């Protein structure tokens, strides 16, 4: 039984007549978390603030990724592509024409981006929609064939996007990337979008839609035999997932203020993969918690990479240590606890 049902049963027992509470306990919990994080965020120094914003961004990308991978069971390896699309599209829309003229030194930026400048929210949404549309286009041919190949097809797509980002200079400024992106991602925007993403996808997962997607994950053939248009629902999950990952990418761009193809390589996919596996495939809240843990752990481990010199303790800097740790973590997770923290899937079917 999953946590949603467990907690709801508990609430129904303790407050048997409060229908509002039965329905909206989730929303209330998320709003409380949001208010607390905002409060904390506004009362710590800049380093921790930036860390909170970064974790919020990873939360958005992780819950989006988990929705199609974990809930619908469609294993893809290209969230980096959708994050990139969301990031670049949004950035190209918010940067002023003057900035773009200065940044695009190799080739002038493609029309119509040279004249356009849009407000942050609209640019972010368009970025998300662009990512969703790309996911849709990839999904159509991919879901018509046997599901096993989706991972590899999407891996190929992720790499193709990387090559395009590096070479389509008039759109992306090539390997130089985009600089001078306005730093619009404040604590409020990041946490706001994160709360919305978790809330929306969590409710979706615990609704009839979620049940349909999970049934596709459990047994595609049986799902089809109960009247589910498997192709259409896979496409839906994948497209929606692309949307949220794209939103995360857009926010990411306006947090870093400088993006390049290097930011959106398979390494990003690897990180998101670790996050959703730790949190548990199929658990939206799990991915959110894991995203926060991961972001903080990543930063804390950076300390070890740079060496510790406190009093008598002298640990030399070990560059690259973080990756070794996370790679071992991933392998150990798969061997000893593939369902992660809150995953609802028993993954021992061949």
């Amino acid at each position, binding site marked *: 039984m999953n946590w949603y049902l467990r907690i709801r049963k508990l609430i129904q027992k303790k407050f048997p007549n409060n229908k509002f509470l039965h329905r909206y306990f989730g929303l209330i919990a998320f709003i409380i978390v949001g208010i607390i994080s905002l409060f904390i965020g506004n009362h710590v120094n800049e380093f921790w603030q930036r860390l909170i914003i970064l974790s919020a961004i990873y939360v958005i990308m992780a819950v989006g990724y988990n929705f199609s991978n974990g809930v619908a069971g469609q294993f893809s390896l290209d969230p980096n592509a959708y994050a990139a699309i969301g990031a670049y599209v949004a950035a190209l829309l918010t940067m002023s024409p003057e900035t773009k003229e200065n940044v695009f030194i190799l080739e002038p930026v493609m029309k119509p981006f040279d004249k356009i400048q849009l407000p942050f929210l609209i640019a972010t949404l368009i970025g998300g929609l662009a990512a969703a549309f790309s996911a849709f286009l990839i999904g159509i041919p991919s879901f018509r064939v046997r599901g096993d190949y989706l991972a590899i097809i999407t891996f190929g797509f992720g790499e193709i996007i990387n090559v395009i980002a590096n070479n389509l200079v008039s759109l992306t400024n090539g390997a130089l990337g985009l600089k001078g992106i306005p730093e619009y991602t404040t604590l409020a925007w990041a946490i706001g979008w994160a709360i919305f993403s978790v809330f929306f996808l969590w409710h979706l997962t615990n609704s009839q839609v979620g049940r349909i997607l999970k049934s596709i994950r459990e047994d595609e053939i049986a799902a089809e035999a109960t009247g589910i248009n498997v192709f259409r629902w896979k496409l839906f999950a994948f497209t929606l997932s692309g949307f949220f990952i794209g939103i995360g990418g857009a926010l990411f761009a306006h947090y870093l203020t400088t993006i390049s193809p290097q930011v959106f390589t398979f390494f990003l996919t690897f990180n998101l993969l670790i996050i959703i596996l730790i949190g548990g495939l199929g658990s939206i809240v799990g991915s959110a918690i894991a995203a926060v843990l991961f972001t903080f752990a990543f930063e804390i481990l950076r300390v070890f990479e740079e060496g510790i010199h406190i009093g008598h303790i002298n640990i030399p800097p070990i560059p690259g240590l973080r990756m070794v740790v996370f790679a071992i973590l*991933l392998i150990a997770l798969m061997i000893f606890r593939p369902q992660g923290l809150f995953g609802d899937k028993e*993954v021992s079917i061949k």
Partner: protein
Amino acid sequence: MDLSFIAQEIINGISLGALYALIAVGYTMVYGVIRLINFAHGDIMMVGCFIAYFLLLKLKLPWPLALILSAILTGFVGVLVDRIAYKPLRDRGAARIINLITAVGVSFFLESLFVVVLGGVPRAFPVPDIFNKEFCIGNVYISMATIATIIIGLICVSILFYIVYKTKIGMAMRAISVDFETTKLMGVNVDRIISFTFFLGSALAAISGFMWAIQFPSIDPYMGIIPGVKAFVAAVFGGIGSVIGAVVGGLIIGILEIFIVGFLPDLAQYRDALIFLILIFTLLVKPTGLFGEKLEEKV
């Protein structure tokens, strides 16, 4: 566009293609037997390269000895990887996606381990002088490296065919690839056979790495990624599970890559994207590739 230019392009293509073919054969062999896409194959190649590097540079071994020794040592590395990371999943009957993820993890692990231990700075592979020789036919240059790659590649593939089709252990490998459960029930020590398969595959990776380093003498912990992925595309295109497919696929991908750069210079920067497009297209249109076998699910 004269004939000798085209001929040179073909030679260069075969030169690169032979490398991809060699790597792809290792990929496809492991998949053929245990249905695992060993994402870390390119990184095992990297490990082989570094082992050869140390054998040549520090122990000053003659290159044939270094080649064979690095193959053997890398073979054992492969067995170790299987025992630690893949075997526990196999014993549990884990879903194929779990295996794939673990392979990704192993790949990242090897890369980052080597970065930590040896540093990320590229090193120069000590290419033995004999490989720098070049032969000239008309206006076309063929280097000894190319010829050596082809010859060694042929030797490897022949040995592989001999093992798979003429020995008992090869028969066991073929049995496992057809029906794992039944083979186990027949009393075959499947763990030993699978370890042997990894040994062979990793040794092959090391040999292909050695030949790669001869043509591209800059080695670093991340060197295995791109050739590994391209060889993977070659293996899929040729038909994953088929050795002939891997060879043909490797040659085609190599020649294609060189041709794009040579004849379509405007698209040259996108050649990697085009290779991935081939991958996607293959999986959508004919997932079994040129020579692969079909797998149906029973309802």
